[in-house]
C-alpha cells in the first residue's frame, strides 16, 4: 500500500478507431488518379521544365501552381532498389520482391514502387520495367499492382 509503482495489475484496454474519412484531391492529383483508372500515367511539367511523376500541384522550388500535365510511358528504368526476402503480413506482394525507385520514360523524377521479379539476381540499377495493371479496377494508385521486368531484360 502507498507505493503506486508496486501495483501488480494495471488496467489496459484496446483503443481501435475507425472512420470513413473523405478526401478532396484537387485538379492535379485528381487527374492523375483518374488517368490511372484508364491505365494511363500523367506527369506535370515544373517551372524549370522538369517532368515530375507522380505529379504535384505546386512547384517544389517556387511554390507556383503547376498546370501543364502530360502523359508518360508505363515503362521505366530502375534508379535504385532493395530486396525484400522475408514476406510478412501486409506487404504488397506475397512473394519476395524488390522495392525500387522507378523513373518512367518521359519523366525526370522517380517514384517508389514494387517490382515482382523473382530473385535479386534478376534486377539491377538500370533495369527496364513496366507497370502491371491490377486485374480489377481500383482506386488511384491501387490500379498499379506492381512493376515487372520488360521482356528484353528477362531474355538478355
Amino acid at each position, binding site marked *: 500500500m502507498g507505493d503506486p509503482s508496486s501495483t501488480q495489475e494495471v*488496467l*489496459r*484496454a*484496446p*483503443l481501435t*478507431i475507425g*472512420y470513413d*474519412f*473523405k*478526401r*478532396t*484531391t*484537387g*485538379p*492535379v*492529383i*485528381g487527374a492523375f488518379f483518374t488517368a490511372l483508372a484508364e491505365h494511363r500515367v500523367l506527369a506535370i511539367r515544373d517551372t524549370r521544365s522538369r517532368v515530375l511523376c507522380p505529379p*504535384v*500541384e*505546386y*512547384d*517544389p*522550388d*517556387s*511554390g507556383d*501552381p503547376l498546370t501543364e500535365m502530360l502523359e508518360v510511358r508505363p515503362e521505366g528504368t530502375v534508379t535504385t532498389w532493395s530486396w525484400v526476402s522475408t514476406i510478412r503480413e501486409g506487404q504488397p506482394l506475397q512473394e519476395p520482391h524488390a522495392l525500387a525507385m522507378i523513373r518512367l520514360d518521359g519523366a525526370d523524377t522517380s517514384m517508389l514502387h514494387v517490382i515482382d521479379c523473382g530473385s535479386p539476381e534478376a534486377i539491377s540499377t538500370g533495369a527496364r520495367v513496366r507497370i502491371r495493371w491490377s486485374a480489377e479496377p481500383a482506386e488511384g494508385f491501387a490500379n498499379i499492382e506492381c512493376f515487372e521486368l520488360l521482356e528484353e531484360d528477362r531474355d538478355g
Partner: protein
Amino acid sequence: MNAERVAVVGIGQTKYSAVRGDVSLPGLLREAAYRALEDAQLTMDDIDAVVVGKAPDFFEGVMMPETYLADALGAVGKPLFRVHTAGSVGGSTALVAASHVQAGLHQRVLTLAWEQQSVSEAMWALSFPVPFRQQLVAGAGGYFAPFIREYMRRSGAPDDVGVLVALKDRLNALKNPYAHLHETEITYDSVKDSFMLWEPIRYSETCPSSDGAVAMVLAAESAAEASAAASGVPPAWVQGTSMRSEPATASGRDQISPRAGSQCAADVFAQAGISDPLQDIDMVEMYVPFSWYEPMWLENLGFAPEGDGWKMTESGRTAMDGDLPVNCSGGVLSSNPIGASGMIRFAEAALQVRNRAGAHQVDGVRRALGHAYGGAGQFFAMWVVGTDKP
C-alpha cells in the same frame, strides 16, 4: 515589455461553405494565403516564416498536414510549423505568429488556419470512446448545454436570449460575403421553432459545419508601414496579446465563467491600456459556437457585471448599431471551419480596425477585441487590435 511592434497588414479568407470539393487541402489554404498576400501588396518571397494552425488531426483524418504544405504555402527554405490548442487554435496560432515578430526574429510572418469539416465528422472525432476517459457522447453541444442551463438559472435570463443572439448573428452574416450561412428568410420564429438539439440549444442556435481557411500577414513596424503605403490600407496594430489554459475538470472550476477566460481578458486589456473595456473597445469578434455563449462571455470578459450579460444582448447593445457590436461578421454561428474559427475572429477584428469590413463595417472602430476559446472552455486566446500604435 521590450517587444517589437507588430501589425496586421494583410487578410485573406475563402468563402466558407459546407463542402469545398473542388480543391485539395493545400489548394484551399493557398487561396486564403494568396489573398492575404495580395491585400498586403506582398509576394511569398517577402515572407520570412509561416505559422499554421488547425484543430485535432481526427477532424480531417490527415495526420500532421503541416509536413506536406511547404510547396503550396511558399515555405520552401523557411520555417514552417503548426500550433494546436483545440478550438482556440486559430487565435493562438495568430498569437504565436505575432510573437515571432514581437521577438524581433522575423519582419513578416504569414499565418493561417483552416478546417475541412466535410471530410470527417467533428461529432465523431470528439466522441469516440477512449478507455478510462469520460466520453463526450453528444459532441460539443451536448457537453456545453448543461453549462448554458446553469447560466440561465444563475442569471434569471429569459428563455429566448439565445434565439436573439442567433437571429442577430445570422442577419449580420447576410452582410458578409464570406459567411457560410446566408439565411435570407430567417426570423425570430424560425429560430425559436427550429429543432431542439441539446436543450436549451436549438438547431438554429448552433454553429454549422464548414470548410474554409483564413490567413493574415503580420509585419514589424517598418514593414507594416511599407505595406500600408503600398496598399493604401492602414495596419491594425496589435496592442495586446494573451493566452490562458486550465484543466477541463478540476475541483472548484467554474465552467460557466472560467477563470482562464477572465484572466486572459484582464491581461490583454491591461496590455492595451484599457481600464473600462465597454468604453474603450468599439467592437468584439467573440467565439460563440452556441448562441448563449454571447451573454456568458460578455460577463466573463468584463463587458457586463455577472448576471447582466443577457441584458446587453436583449436590449440590442450587441447589434451592429449597438454600443458594443458583437460578431458583425456573423460569427461562428454563421461559419465554422473549426480550426480557422478563432483566427477568423482575430482577422475580422483587424478588418474592422482597418475599415475594410464592407457591408458589415462598424463606423469608427479604433479598437477591437478578437476572442477564441477551445477544448472544454479551457483554452483562451485574445488580442486587441487598434488604429494606433501600442
